């Protein structure tokens, strides 16, 4: 791997450059034989962000993370971590990685596994002694470090995986489906953990197909499908867009629709309800007043926020056709 290291002046410059994004990929392509796992993946993750990487199974999420960690070499394109080529040992020292299947050497105890990984990460014996109980506590495994991983439940194995990823105080954490084996309480703990990491200034790259989870913790999101980013942006922008109002009425007729058309675009009409796209939710009281004055009975006026799931489904489905 050392042959990929850049010349030392360039490296020093890259390390010193605070401006380099945590992750930057350009035209990343990966072929496995004839199968193309990644087409042309370009994205940038800024420092301190919690970035959600979202896509259906087989979209190329795991391949991307493996390229970022240097486990897989791209067929074409570039990936840089803090300005260094992905796979560079210096870049890898700054990464914490929870692999998708979180399988660890199960003949080890949790603490021994962390000790082994700490050694590989370059932590001194003293640092390991101090840090291991800390991370065990952080992931909710305090007091369980002496047990063999073989006897851990799936949830505990995932937690020890998280501990392993955070052990060496990385600047960037790559989490590939970090909550797949956790129960709802465990998921909440991991969400809180991720928020804590953000508060400490870490960058988190979160691979997940659990939309609600991404929605709850991520600042920015990229939706990937068949090896391409189909949409990316701030979460608020993605799910925001034009707001919608759902009106529940005693009846719907043309006169009403004409009146509502003054305020926005009529998106859907049903016997007793209308969905109206409006430029701003501020118009809601005026709409209510108009309806009541015209003699209709208004049972409900509900602002509808598009969920990430709606965005995701519409994007992935539209490509399917």
């Amino acid at each position, binding site marked *: 791997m050392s042959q990929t290291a850049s010349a030392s002046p360039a490296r020093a410059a890259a390390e010193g450059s605070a401006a380099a994004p945590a992750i930057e990929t350009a035209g990343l392509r990966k072929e496995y034989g004839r199968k193309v796992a990644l087409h042309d993946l370009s994205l940038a993750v800024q420092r301190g962000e919690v970035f959600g990487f979202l896509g259906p199974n087989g979209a190329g999420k795991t391949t991307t993370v493996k390229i970022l960690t240097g486990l897989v070499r791209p067929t074409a394109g570039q990936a840089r971590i803090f300005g260094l080529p992905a796979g560079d*040992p210096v870049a*890898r020292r700054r*990464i914490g990685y929870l*692999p998708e299947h979180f*399988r660890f050497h199960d003949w080890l105890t949790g603490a021994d596994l962390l000790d082994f*990984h700490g050694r590989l990460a*370059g932590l001194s014996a003293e640092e390991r002694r101090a840090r291991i109980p800390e991370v065990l506590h952080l992931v909710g495994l305090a007091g369980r470090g002496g047990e063999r991983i073989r006897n851990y439940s799936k949830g505990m194995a995932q937690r020890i995986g998280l501990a392993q*990823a955070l052990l060496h105080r990385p600047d960037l954490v790559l989490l590939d489906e970090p909550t797949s084996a956790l129960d709802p309480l465990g998921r909440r703990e991991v969400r809180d953990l991720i928020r804590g990491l953000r508060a400490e200034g870490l960058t988190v790259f979160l691979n997940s197909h659990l939309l609600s989870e991404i929605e709850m913790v991520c600042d920015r999101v990229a939706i990937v499908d068949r090896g391409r980013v189909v949409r990316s942006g701030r979460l608020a922008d993605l799910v925001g867009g034009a707001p919608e109002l759902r009106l529940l009425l005693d009846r719907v007729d043309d006169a009403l629709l004409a009146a509502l058309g003054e305020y926005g675009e009529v998106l859907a009409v049903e016997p007793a309800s209308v969905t109206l796209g409006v430029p701003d939710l501020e118009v809601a009281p005026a709409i209510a007043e108009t309806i009541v004055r015209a003699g209709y009975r208004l049972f409900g006026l509900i602002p509808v926020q598009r969920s990430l799931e709606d965005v995701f489904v519409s994007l992935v489905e539209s490509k399917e056709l």
Partner: protein
Amino acid sequence: MNALAIARFTIQEAASRRLILAGVVLSLAFVGLFTLGFAFLNGKLAEANATRPNPQMVAAFGSIMAILGLYAVHFLASFLGLFLSVGAISGEIDSGTLHAVLARPIGRADFVVGRWLAYVGLMGVYVALMAGLLLLVARLIAGYEAPDPARAMVLMALGPILLLTLSLFGSTLLSTLANGVVVFTLFGLAWLAGIIEFVGDALSNEAMVNLGIVVSLLVPSDELWRGASYYVQSPAFLAAATAGRGAIPFAAIAPPSTPFVIWAVLHPLVFLLLAIVSFSRRDL
């Protein structure tokens, strides 16, 4: 440094999976059996010798028993080396445990070399202990002294090391099962080639001898054993065997040539290098 961490980890792994314990218990059982058989036969020989003296037989007895015992150790060590290393890389890939490890700032070469160092260390200790114990038994019971036990042990250890390096290389390319089949077949082929060469020599058939030589250059494990065997046979026994054109089909009556020994040392290094290259190119 990282390679050493991997080596340490590999030895821990062998210990915790009871591989080392099983190896030690079974091997000690073998040494016990050998001691009993040796003592029993030695007693019979002494009895027979008392009624009808046969100095040639007495001289041959120590050599033959030492060769038989060490031949068994050679097999045990070869299998142990094979079993240790057959899934060194492929097993880790299959179980998915490599991802977290190799995302650390360590090179693929560190991983391969660390594994190799651990296996080589284990095999070295194993061969030295087992061969040492057997030769000690021969000495205590029959007063038999092998001419050059150190040289014999080094050559004996090289055989399993060569095999485990081959299987380490194989495990970067093949599944554990396929790798085991391939390396075991190569080991069997080398053994067969040794026999073919021996028979060819006895029949003065040049083609058979050449076939044996070619195979033993590709996989020198059997030839290494033969080289080792030379150094544990008494000069008197060797002289008699040379006169009678080879007494034991799986032991040598001439020392291994220097170029062969150099090749046998280079062989694992070449395959270690190939393993590093092959693993470094692999996507995980």
